[in-house]
């Protein structure tokens, strides 16, 4: 299996890519904080690059959970039953802004795809 080449250089996350990530992450940042975060990300990637040197033969599968879920220790699935939550009011009470039993949000932006 040929793995795609990863970005190289001292700054794998340049400012434009960082701005894209910040948009995906939905984070408003001030410039000073943005500089710090981008610098730290690039340093962390330098550490992560150590993984590239590890020889991984075809037989090395991924591990999504350390402990294998054998039939002996896997709980049976719950019955697929709909039931009303007894805590609907308590949960709604946590919303920062409500109107009656509705949660209030600002305008939802729409993108015209036509």
């Amino acid at each position, binding site marked *: 299996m040929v*793995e*795609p*080449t*990863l*970005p190289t250089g*001292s700054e794998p996350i340049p400012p434009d890519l960082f701005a894209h*990530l*910040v948009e995906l*992450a*939905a*984070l*408003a*940042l001030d410039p000073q*904080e943005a500089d*710090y*975060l981008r610098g*730290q*990300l690039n*340093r*962390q*990637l*330098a*550490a*992560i*690059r*150590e*993984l*590239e040197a*590890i020889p*991984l033969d075809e037989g*090395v*599968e*991924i*591990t*999504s*959970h*350390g*402990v294998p*879920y054998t039939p*002996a*220790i*896997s*709980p*049976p*699935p*719950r019955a697929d039953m709909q039931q009303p939550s007894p*805590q609907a009011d*308590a*949960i709604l*009470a*946590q*919303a*920062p*802004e409500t109107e009656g039993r509705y*949660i209030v*949000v*600002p*305008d*939802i*932006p729409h993108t015209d795809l036509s």
Partner: protein
Amino acid sequence: MSAELCDLPAHELAPRVRRGELRAVEVLESTLERIRRVEGRPPSSAPYTPEPADRQALHAYITLTAERARAQAEAVDRAAAEGRDPGPLAGVPLAVKDIFCVEGTPSTAASRILEPFVAPYTATPVRRLEEAGALMLGKVNLDEFTFGSSNESTAFLPPPGNPWDPARVPGGSSGASAAAVAAGEATLSLGTDTAGSIRQPAAFCGVVGLKPTYGRVSRYGLIAFASSIDCPGPIARDVTDAALMLNVIAGPDPLDATAAAAPVPDHCEGLEQGVRGLRIGLSPDYFRVTFPDPASGGMQEQPIEPEVEAAVRAAAEVLARQGAEIVEPVAMPNTRYGVPAYFVVSRVEAASNLHRYDGVKYGYRHPGAVEDLRALYRKTRGRGFGPQAKLRILMGLYVSAAQYRQGYYQRALRVRTLIRRDFEAAFDRSAGRGVDVLLTPTAPTTAFELGAVYGNSVLMQYADLLTVAADHAGIPGLSIPCGLDGRGLPIGLQLLGPDFSEALLLRVGRAYEQATAGAPWRRARPRVLEAR
């Protein structure tokens, strides 16, 4: 100085309370008095100006629930008086890491974004502890969303101090849990471990911390960081208390499909069986650390602190004198990749788990006017999250992006397989090979000074180098105190074993505890208790 009630272990307190010889209310009063003595000003999200007095105190509790604990203590005393069994942890003061939802309490994750959140339900392990008669004293500080190894990333400041030297960190992320237990502000604490967050603070604060096997304890009601790794577990002052607490919290839970259906043994039974005939392994890969050199950018290998290595080797000799066979060297070659793999796996899961915080359903919401919903998200999350949460979200998005996923995320998950294989080979006892448990240092150093590492997110993550491999593999790990360094700071040793071998780890820990009961370092008390 005679021990106060708040200094006694759960396995002494609970039987006396159950027999009606001691009132739970008295235990509570003793603990509240200790809190008044050592706690200092409460942590807050208000703008923080450090004061010299802050470094004389612990600042462990974000929320103190003394009235809840008092009602529980009175119920326990009533049950005992009426001849009903108030439970195996009757009257035992408990501090809960503020990453667990507890109905009716602020459940903040030490983040501004959850500061207004009052949980409408209770996490399964907390519910089990309360049902067992524990007194829920409050919610203790941590690194924001558990993101750190020093407790300094909390949004609630002052950060907790180390009871042995409050100018130093208690470790993290369950830092205030370990500090509170060490100083008698609680007898037990419920922590979580994703890269070492129970074991490393236990080592730094001179207490016992157990990360159970993944799935041994339900995660229902735990505010998620990395869902494939997060493990709730006990922090206690001795091994017997950790066993007692694990008995209560372990086991299947219909509310968490990843809680294993494996039977739960009585972890207190067999605790005193000793180590004769056990094979205990030492690995050179746990006596050195490989980490990025800030100056050159390259990787640098260096031995762990000599005093830490010496204490762990001395512990091996103690166990050998008790009849264990010490096996050395056990090769664990992939240990060094634990942190780089964790940088990828945990970030992807964290980014996914943190998407739910948007200022709409619960928690903090940007208070000003905004043009639309996207702007509300950005402003809420920009103000609500601290820098460590932001770093994890951004890195998680980057390494899971379509063009890099194969090279980063898939590769990290495959490296995790190699780490798991190291343990499977080490614990393979077929044909007379392998070891029953591994004995290692818990952390490469003792507690460092506040501010010494915070801000360098790479170096901070490497504080977990000796603990994170067990998290990747899902296996259990136990940290227990094994001495003090030249500055009087606690040193922790770590015992690692195969899946669901908690009882064996506790048994080895207990044997060590008994063999060193008379050691001079065991008489030392945290400075915060001596100075006042």
